[in-house]
């Protein structure tokens, strides 16, 4: 399930649409099963899945968005390399993130839901919540930072516990 988070995130960074990134993840998974792919190591499966997800995401973005909004290839290369290099850490982070999300206040959950589950642009989120656009950007920025700190706290705790 953690591989799912990583593949969907790699697709999301291109398409920026939760439903589309989920569809891309499903396509990759089904492709993997129906093509009888053969890999020599787990890392190769993930590498293949990330590359395939990125291709599908770029195709989707080109059909649905302006070309200029797609991240440049060299930046995507860097992001992908770093994602693959940090694979173990990302799995642990993913689990910690799910736990951190459960602890958030209701209003914060609602904001994240509108932005990332329902896929509303921040301007639409602002309208829906009756808040200013700048306020929404600042609240989202702080929420991402809060979640990051929560994840790192949980990971530090688990390391201490293990040692």
């Amino acid at each position: 399930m953690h591989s799912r988070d990583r593949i969907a995130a790699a697709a999301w960074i291109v398409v920026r649409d939760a439903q589309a990134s989920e569809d891309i993840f499903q396509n990759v998974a089904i492709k993997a099963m129906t093509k009888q792919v053969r890999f020599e190591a787990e890392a190769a499966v993930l590498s293949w899945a990330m590359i395939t997800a990125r291709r599908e995401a770029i195709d989707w973005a080109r059909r649905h968005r302006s070309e200029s909004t797609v991240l440049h290839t060299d930046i995507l290369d860097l992001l992908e390399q770093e994602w693959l290099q940090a694979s173990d850490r990302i799995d642990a982070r993913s689990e910690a993130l799910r736990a951190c999300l459960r602890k958030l206040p209701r209003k914060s959950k609602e904001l994240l839901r509108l932005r990332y589950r329902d896929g509303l642009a921040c301007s639409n989120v602002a309208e829906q919540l009756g808040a200013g656009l700048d306020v929404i950007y600042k609240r989202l920025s702080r929420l991402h930072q809060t979640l990051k700190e929560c994840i790192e706290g949980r990971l530090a705790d688990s390391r201490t516990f293990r040692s």
Partner: protein
Amino acid sequence: MSDTDGTYELLLRYLDDTLCPEERARVETMLREQAQVRDLLREIAQQAATIADVHRVTDDVQRVPHTTHGHSTESGPAVKWPLLVAAIAILVLIATQLVLQPERDPEIFTVNGLAGQMKWIGDGGQVTDKLTAGQHLPGGTLELLSADAWIEIQFLDGSQVSLSGHSAVTVSDQRQKMLHLRQGTLSAQVEPQPANRPLLVHTDAADLQVLGTQFNVDAQAATTKLTVNEGRVRLTRVADGQAIDVPARHQVIASIADDHGLALSRRVEHVTTWHSDLKSDAVHGKWTSNLKMLAARLKKAVANGNMTKHDAIAAYKESATLDDEQGSIWAMPSAVGPLVVLSVSATSPAPVILTERGKFRIRGRRHATDAMEVGITTNEPHGGFAGKYSVSVPLDALPGDDDTFEIELPLGMFRKDTSLVDSPVGKELGGWWCVSNSRFAKLEIISIELVE
């Protein structure tokens, strides 16, 4: 607000596409140069994907009919079973890969020759960057990673395809040959194909049907240029389905944005000189207008206390014109170092033939002390890839920091990487590139000319 909060906000606005072009460029520079900014972007993406999934699962659970109470609470669509199937599929796949050994995919082509950095991703997921001449491969995707890279492959029926420069093509042959050219330059010599199973070439802007011919395709993000040297190729524009048969010695350009008629043009007589329109020809590198660079220099001067804000604004107004088409191109990071790639064949209406008297005149600025390599991609005058040629420009040929340089490189100095005697004279110029030897160097090209 902390610096990290500020960076998050900038990235969120970047992802929403609400930044002005200058701010977008600044974020992209930060993403290229600062690992911690990339960390934050990955963090946002990871959080976004996970948040969506957590809410989706919660929604689905709430929508499951509560049969034990004798009534249904379902108000939306049914549980998304494909999600569960897909998740299980990935887990099962990972768990069983080391055990299952399905049969290999059939090999469909042979590598005739190659050079430069590239990788091969098989349909089965195998990834390798160690290709060799004579190697037999099944269907999959070839990605050429450097400007000086090229590869020639041959199908079982003798049809040959060459790919050069920054290019990516997916190749398959399941009773019908199919090439999906995602970007780059492809040249093909196609043996006669069955009438009901022509060779197909797909790009983002056009679909080609080939029964047997020699042709070149140059695919950029939104434009595909097809040049037919022998035989005939049918091109269908993806945007509106309009089709045209392109006969020998003719060319056509199909664009995603264009909805006018497809204009067929006869290949005109060749020329022997060329002056790059840097803005239109750029394949890799960032074009920046002179006015924008002036604004950046003035901002820096104000920030350093060398100029007042009032004087800077006055200087900017004095230099501003409505014609902001003059500028230069900056090298951008690549697998082989900071790189500029220009496509000659994509924009030049006439073939540019290289002569003995030809020389490249290059003007630019070098913002670090490193040598550079200049190279060209060539085609045979009557079609087909002819090779890559390059020359190293030593440090002492270039002046010091921040100085403008102008150098002339006669074609006689250019050599193929595999040969000390072969020269590009007589070949058609397809592309031009330069790369710095240091990945940290900054290189700015102001103009490129081929003169005699």
